[in-house]
C-alpha cells in the first residue's frame, strides 16, 4: 500500500528551542484513518503543521504525498497543499467572504471553472446540510455550522488527505458527531486518507483506524 506520509528520524522544533518531536518514525498508508493523540503541549499540532509544511523538519526526513518536506520550495509546497484538505479547531474561515465563497476557495486556487466550482459547492453544502446558509458570513453561524463549512471546504477539491487538528474541540455533541460522520464518510466513500489530531478518540467512530500516541517527544503506535 502506498505511504502517503513517511517520517524517519524526524525531529521538529520551533526556531532554536528544544525539540518537540524527537527522532520519530511514523508511516501512514493511503486511504487509512489515523488518530494522533497526546496530552496538551505534547506536539500533536506541531506534527500536523509539519505535515502541511507550516513547520520545516529540523532533522530527519518527512515525506508527504511523495514530496520531501525538508527545505521544500514554496512552489512545490503550494502544489502539495492544493491536494490536501485542512480542518482546524478554530475553523479558519475567511470572515469577510460568504459561506459559498469560503467553500469555493480550494476550487478557485486549483483553477476550476466558475460553473464547475458552483456545482461542486452546491453538492458539498448539501452534503454538510448547509445549503440554506450559503449566502451568510461565518460570524453569523454557530461553531458547529462553521466547522461543517470548514469540512465542506476541506473536501471541495477531492484532496488525497484530510488533516484535522482537534476538529470537534469547540463543538457540542450533536455537531461533533456530524463532523465525525463527515470524516468517516470521506474515508470510506471517497477513500481519502484522514489524519486527526485529538485528545481522545471518540467512541462513535466505527471505521477501522490506526492510532499513534505522542509522549515526551516520541511517537508510539498504539495497537
Amino acid at each position, binding site marked *: 500500500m502506498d505511504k502517503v506520509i513517511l517520517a524517519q528520524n524526524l525531529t521538529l522544533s520551533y526556531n532554536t528551542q528544544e525539540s518537540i518531536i524527537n527522532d520519530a518514525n511514523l508511516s501512514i498508508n493511503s486511504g487509512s484513518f489515523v488518530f494522533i493523540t497526546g496530552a496538551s503541549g505534547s506536539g500533536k499540532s506541531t506534527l500536523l503543521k509539519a505535515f502541511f509544511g507550516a513547520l520545516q523538519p529540523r532533522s530527519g526526513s518527512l515525506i508527504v504525498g511523495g514530496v520531501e518536506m525538508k527545505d521544500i520550495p514554496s512552489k512545490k509546497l503550494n502544489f502539495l497543499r492544493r*491536494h490536501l484538505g485542512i480542518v482546524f479547531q478554530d475553523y479558519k474561515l475567511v470572515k469577510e467572504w460568504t459561506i459559498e465563497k469560503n467553500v469555493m476557495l480550494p476550487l478557485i486556487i486549483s483553477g476550476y471553472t466558475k460553473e464547475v466550482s458552483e456545482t461542486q459547492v452546491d453538492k458539498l453544502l448539501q452534503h454538510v446540510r448547509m445549503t440554506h446558509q450559503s449566502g451568510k458570513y461565518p460570524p453569523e453561524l454557530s461553531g458547529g455550522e462553521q466547522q461543517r463549512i470548514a469540512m465542506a471546504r476541506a473536501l471541495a477539491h477531492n484532496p488525497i488527505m484530510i488533516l484535522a487538528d482537534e476538529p470537534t474541540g469547540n463543538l457540542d455533541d450533536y455537531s461533533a458527531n456530524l463532523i465525525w460522520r463527515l470524516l468517516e464518510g470521506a474515508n470510506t466513500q471517497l477513500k481519502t486518507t484522514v489524519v486527526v489530531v485529538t485528545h481522545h478518540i471518540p467512541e462513535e467512530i466505527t471505521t477501522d483506524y490506526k492510532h499513534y500516541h505522542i509522549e515526551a517527544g516520541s511517537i508510539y503506535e498504539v495497537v
Partner: protein
Amino acid sequence: MKSFKNHLSLITALFTILFTIQIFIIVERAIASYEQNLSQQYSIIVIANSTLQNSRFIEAHPFIERSETITVDDVLERLTRDMKQKNVDLLKLSLPKFYRIYLKSYPSPRDIDSVGNALKKIPSVSKIESFAQSHDTLYNLLLLFKNVVSVFALTILAVTTLLIIKEMRLWQFQHSERMNIMALFGAPVWLRSAVLFRLSIVDAIIASGLINAAFSAIEHQRWIHEQLGALSITLTLFDPIRDGLMLFGIAMGISIVLASMIIMGHKEEV
C-alpha cells in the same frame, strides 16, 4: 461600512499627497512665471566710452540675453535748444554710450555680481548700475516664499506618509488572516495578494479621479486667474493630460509599493 472606511482612509491619504504635490507644482510654476516677468523687466545699465555691439555683451557672459542702446537724443534736444548744431554734434560725440542689458532669467545676487564683473572686463565700460539693493529685496522675498512653500509641502508629505504607514499596518493586520488561509490551501503569492492589489489600485484610481475633479474645478475659477493676473502671472493650474497622468502615476506607485510592502512583510502563521 467597514470596507468603505478602509477605502476612505487610503483615498484620503493619497488625495492629500496628490493635492500637496500639485499645489507645490502650481507654486513652482507661478514663481517661475513671476521670475520670467521680473527678468523681462529687470535690466542692468552699462555706460561705455565707445560704441559696443550686441554680440560683445552676449560674449561677455552666458547669462546675458541681449542689449539695447539707450538713446540720449530726447534729453539732448531739451538741453541744447539754444545751442548751435555744430556744438551739439561735438557734445554728442563726447558723451558716453548708454546700454540696457537684459538677462535670460531672473538673476540671483551672485549672478548679478558675476555679470557685473564680466561687463567690467570690457575695456570701454566705465560704469555699471545693477540696482542691486532693490533687486536683492525682491529676490530674498521670492526665496522666502519658495522656502515656506517647500517646508509646508514637506510637512504635509511627512504627515501623510505617517498616515500611509499607519494604514499599511492596519491593512497588514486585516489581510494577513485571509492570506494565511489562502496559503494553507496552496494559493500562490499573486493570488493571495490579488485582493490587496485590487483594493490599492481601485483606491489609487479613485484618489486620482477626485484630484482631477478638484483641480479641474480650481482651474475654472476665474478669481484665481484674476488674482494671478494682477501679479502678471499667467499659468495653467492643472493640465488634465500632463498633470493628471503624473498624479495618477504617483498614486499608483504609492499604492503598489504599499501593497508590495504588506505582502513582503507577511509571514505565514497557523
